[in-house]
C-alpha cells in the first residue's frame, strides 16, 4: 500500500508532463504565428487561413491534452460541483469557439489564446505537482521506512520471511548494517543502533541483553537476537506514521476563512465574470473586448493558492518535524504556540531521567539493618522511589511485611513482626507525630543538594534518612537557558518539597517552582497559571495526561520505546529537551509560513481580479499570473526546509 502512494504521485506528474509536451508542440506554432501577426504586424498569410490553422492546431491542445480539465470542468458546471477546472474549461472553450464565430464576423478570434491558456494551465499544474511531491518527500520516506523482510529463527533454522508473516514472540536475527524488522527486546548480542530515522536521536544507542529496540532502526556493528514484541500496526513506527497522517487532516483555526472562501469561490467568480462581460458589452458595445475581459476574469481567479496555503505548509512542516522526532498532532497547536508565555515542566522523567538512585544515607542504626527494613517494605510498592530503595538494599531475603499500605504522595507503612514501620517524607512524619528534630539539619543538607529525602521510622523512632536523586538530562540546562532567553517564563512542577525542588530547578536554570503537588493536582495548577497567560505543559504523559490536556499546548515526551500519543498536541519521539526547543521553533516557523501564504493568496486574488475586471490584462497574461500564484504558495511552503530547527 505504501508503494501505491508513491506510484500515484509519480503517475500524476507523468500525466501532466505528457500533456504538457503535447500541448506545447501544437501551441508553439500558434504562438509564433500570433507574435508575427499581432505584435510585428507581419501578414504571413490570409487572415482566414491563419484562423483555420489556429483552430486545427488548437483543437488537440484543448480537447486532447486538456481533455481531463474540459470534461470535469464542464461536467461540474452542470452538476454544480464547481472546481478550478470549471473556470479553465469555460474560459478556453468560449475562447476557442470565437475562432469559429469569427468566420461569421461576429467576434474577434481568441482561439489561439485558448490554446495558450490551456498550455500554461497544464504547465502550471505540472510544476505544482512536482513541488507538491517535494513537499511530501519526508512523509513518503517515513511511510517507506519499515523493513520488508525479516530473518527469523524457526525450529533452529534461519529463514527469511516477509515482514507481514512475522508474529509476536518470533526471534529475529539482525546482522550489522541491517534494519531491525520490528519492535522487540534484545535476548542476545550487543550492538550500537542508529535510531535517528525514527526518534531524531543523532547518536547511536548502545543495545545489549534486555534493551528495547525499535523497528526500522539500523543495527550498526554487532549481531542482535531480538524477540519480537510488537508487529504491524502496533509498532512504534506505525504509531508515528498514523499520527503524522492524521495530523494532516486537522485544521489550523486561521484557515477557516480561507476554507469558507474556497468553497464558494468558483461560483462567485463565474457570476463576477458574467457580470463583467455584460457590463463591458453594455458600455462599450464591443463583443470581442467584452469577451476577452470576461475570459481574463475566469482564468485569473485562483482558488488553489487559497486552498493550498495552509495544508501545504502543514505537510512540509510535519515532514521535517518527523525527521527530527517532533510530531505535530494537532494543527491548532501551531497557532496557539505563538501566544504561549509560560512553559511548565514536569520534573520526573521530563527534566530528569526518571531513574532515581540512592545517593546518600545517614543512619542512626547499622546501615544494613536500615536497608533491610526499608527494602522489605518498599518492595511492595511500584513507585520509582521505592524501586530506587529496593535496588540499593539488594536484599537476598525479604522480611515479611503485614498490613502494608501506600500513603499516596507521602510514603508507605507496614508491620514487620510487631514493629510499626513508617517510611516517607517529612510531612508524613509530622502527621504521625514522629519527632524529626535531631535530623533536621541533615534533612536540610540533603534537600539543598536536591535529594528527595526519605525518612524511615520504626515504632515512631527515626532510624535514618536516605537521600535519593534523579539526575537531570544532559541537555536540560542548554534547552532551558535557550527558552529563558527567548523570554518564556519557565516553571517546574513536582511532588518534591520546596527545598529539594529549588535545588533541582537551580541546577537546570528554572527560576520558578511549584512544589508539593500531588499528581492529580497538576492539572489544577496549570489552570491557575492559565489566568496569567497561555501555558504549554511538557510531560511524559504517564501521570500528567490531565495536565497535558488542560494546558493550551501539551508537549508529550516519548520515553524510549513508548510514545504518549493520545496525550499531547505535539509529541516528541524521544525524551530530550532540545526537542521542546525544536518543537517550539518549528511551530512558530510553520505558523509564520502559513500566515505568509494566506497573505499572498488573498492579496493575489484581491489585486488580480479587479485588475482583470478593469480590462487591463490580456487573458494569456492573466493565466500566467494564476499559474504563478499557486506555484508560489507551494514553493514558499517548501522554503520551510531552510529553517534550522
Amino acid at each position, binding site marked *: *500500500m505504501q508503494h*501505491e*502512494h508513491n506510484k*500515484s*504521485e509519480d503517475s*500524476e506528474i507523468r500525466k501532466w508532463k505528457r500533456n504538457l509536451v503535447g500541448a506545447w508542440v501544437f501551441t508553439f506554432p500558434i504562438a509564433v504565428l500570433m507574435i508575427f501577426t499581432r505584435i510585428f504586424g507581419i501578414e504571413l498569410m490570409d487572415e482566414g487561413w491563419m484562423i483555420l490553422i489556429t483552430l486545427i492546431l488548437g483543437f488537440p491542445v484543448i480537447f486532447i491534452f486538456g481533455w481531463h480539465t474540459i*470534461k*470535469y470542468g464542464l*461536467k*461540474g458546471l452542470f*452538476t454544480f*460541483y*464547481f*472546481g*478550478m*477546472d470549471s473556470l479553465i474549461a469555460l474560459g478556453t472553450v468560449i475562447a476557442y469557439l470565437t475562432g469559429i464565430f469569427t468566420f461569421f464576423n461576429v467576434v474577434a478570434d481568441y482561439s489561439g489564446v485558448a490554446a495558450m491558456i490551456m498550455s500554461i494551465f497544464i504547465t502550471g*499544474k505540472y510544476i*505544482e*505537482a512536482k513541488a*507538491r511531491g517535494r*513537499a*511530501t518527500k519526508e*512523509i513518503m520516506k517515513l511511510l517507506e521506512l519499515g523493513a520488508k523482510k525479516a530473518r527469523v529463527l524457526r525450529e533452529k533454522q534461519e529463514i527469511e520471511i516477509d515482514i507481514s508473516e512475522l508474529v509476536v514472540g518470533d526471534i529475529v536475527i539482525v546482522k550489522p548494517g541491517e534494519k531491525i524488522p520490528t519492535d522487540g527486546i534484545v535476548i542476545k548480542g550487543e550492538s550500537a543502533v542508529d535510531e535517528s530515522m525514527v526518534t531524531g536521536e543523532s547518536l547511536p544507542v548502545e543495545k545489549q541483553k534486555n534493551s528495547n529496540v525499535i523497528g526500522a532502526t539500523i543495527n550498526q556493528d554487532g549481531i542482535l537476537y531480538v524477540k519480537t514484541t510488537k508487529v504491524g500496526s502496533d509498532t512504534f513506527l506505525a504509531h508515528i506514521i498514523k499520527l503524522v*497522517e*492524521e495530523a*494532516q*487532516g486537522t485544521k489550523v483555526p486561521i484557515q477557516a476563512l480561507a476554507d469558507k472562501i*474556497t*468553497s464558494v*469561490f*468558483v461560483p462567485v467568480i463565474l457570476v463576477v465574470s458574467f457580470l463583467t462581460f455584460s457590463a463591458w458589452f453594455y458600455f462599450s458595445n464591443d463583443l470581442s473586448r467584452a469577451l476577452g475581459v470576461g475570459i481574463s476574469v475566469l482564468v485569473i481567479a485562483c*482558488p*488553489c493558492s*487559497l*486552498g*493550498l496555503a495552509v*495544508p*501545504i505548509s502543514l*505537510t512540509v512542516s510535519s515532514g521535517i518535524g518527523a525527521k527530527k522526532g517532533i510530531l505535530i498532532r494537532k494543527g491548532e497547536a501551531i497557532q496557539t504556540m505563538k501566544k504561549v508565555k509560560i512553559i511548565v515542566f514536569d520534573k520526573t522523567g521530563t527534566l530528569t531521567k526518571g531513574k532515581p538512585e540512592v545517593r546518600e544515607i545517614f543512619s542512626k542504626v547499622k546501615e544494613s539493618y536500615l536497608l533491610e527494613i526499608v527494602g522489605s517494605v518498599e518492595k511492595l510498592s511500584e513507585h520509582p522511589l521505592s524501586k530506587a530503595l529496593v535496588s540499593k538494599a539488594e536484599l537476598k531475603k525479604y522480611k515479611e511485611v503485614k498490613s502494608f499500605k501506600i500513603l499516596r504522595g507521602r510514603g508507605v507503612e507496614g508491620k514487620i513482626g510487631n514493629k510499626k514501620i513508617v517510611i516517607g517524607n517529612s510531612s508524613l512524619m509530622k502527621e504521625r507525630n514522629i519527632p524529626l528534630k535531631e535530623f533536621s539539619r541533615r534533612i536540610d543538607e540533603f534537600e539543598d543538594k536536591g535529594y528527595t529525602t526519605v525518612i524511615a521510622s520504626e515504632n515512631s523512632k527515626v532510624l535514618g534518612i536516605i537521600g535519593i536523586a534523579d539526575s537531570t538530562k544532559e541537555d536540560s540546562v542548554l534547552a532551558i537557558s535557550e527558552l529563558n532567553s527567548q523570554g518564556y517564563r519557565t516553571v517546574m512542577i513536582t511532588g518534591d518539597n520546596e527545598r529539594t525542588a529549588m535545588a533541582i530547578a537551580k541546577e537546570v536554570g528554572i527560576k520558578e517552582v511549584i512544589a508539593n503537588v500531588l499528581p492529580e493536582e497538576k492539572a489544577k495548577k496549570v489552570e491557575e497559571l492559565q489566568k496569567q497567560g497561555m501555558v504549554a505543559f511538557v510531560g511524559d504523559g504517564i501521570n500528567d495526561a490531565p495536565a497535558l490536556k488542560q494546558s493550551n499546548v501539551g508537549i508529550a515526551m516519548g520515553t524510549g520505546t513508548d510514545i504518549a500519543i493520545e496525550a499531547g498536541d505535539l509529541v516528541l519521539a524521544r525524551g530530550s529537551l532540545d526537542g521542546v526547543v525544536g518543537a517550539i521553533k518549528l511551530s512558530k516557523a510553520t505558523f509564520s509560513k502559513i500566515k505568509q501564504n494566506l497573505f499572498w493568496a488573498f492579496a493575489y486574488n484581491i489585486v488580480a481580479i479587479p485588475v482583470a475586471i478593469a480590462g487591463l490584462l490580456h487573458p494569456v497574461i492573466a493565466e500566467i499570473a494564476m499559474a504563478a500564484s*499557486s506555484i508560489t504558495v507551494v514553493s514558499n511552503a517548501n522554503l520551510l526546509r531552510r529553517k534550522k530547527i
Partner: protein
Amino acid sequence: MKKLKLNIEGMHCASCVGNVKKSLMNVKGVKDANINLILKSGRVEAEDNVSLEEIKKAVSKIGYKVINITAE
C-alpha cells in the same frame, strides 16, 4: 460507526477537495469526511450500513477515482 481510509486519484486543486468532501457528506450515513489533497487521501467516518461501493461511487460520480479503501 466505522472509519475508512481512502486513497483518491485525480484531485489537483483545493476546490477538488471541497467537491469530494461535499459529495461524500451527501452520502446518507456519512458523518464526517476529511480530504487531503497533498497526500491524496481521505478519512471518512460513517455508520456501519454505509457500503464501500456507495463511498466509491460518491467519489467517482464527480470525476475522481478511489484507488484504495481500507477500514481502520
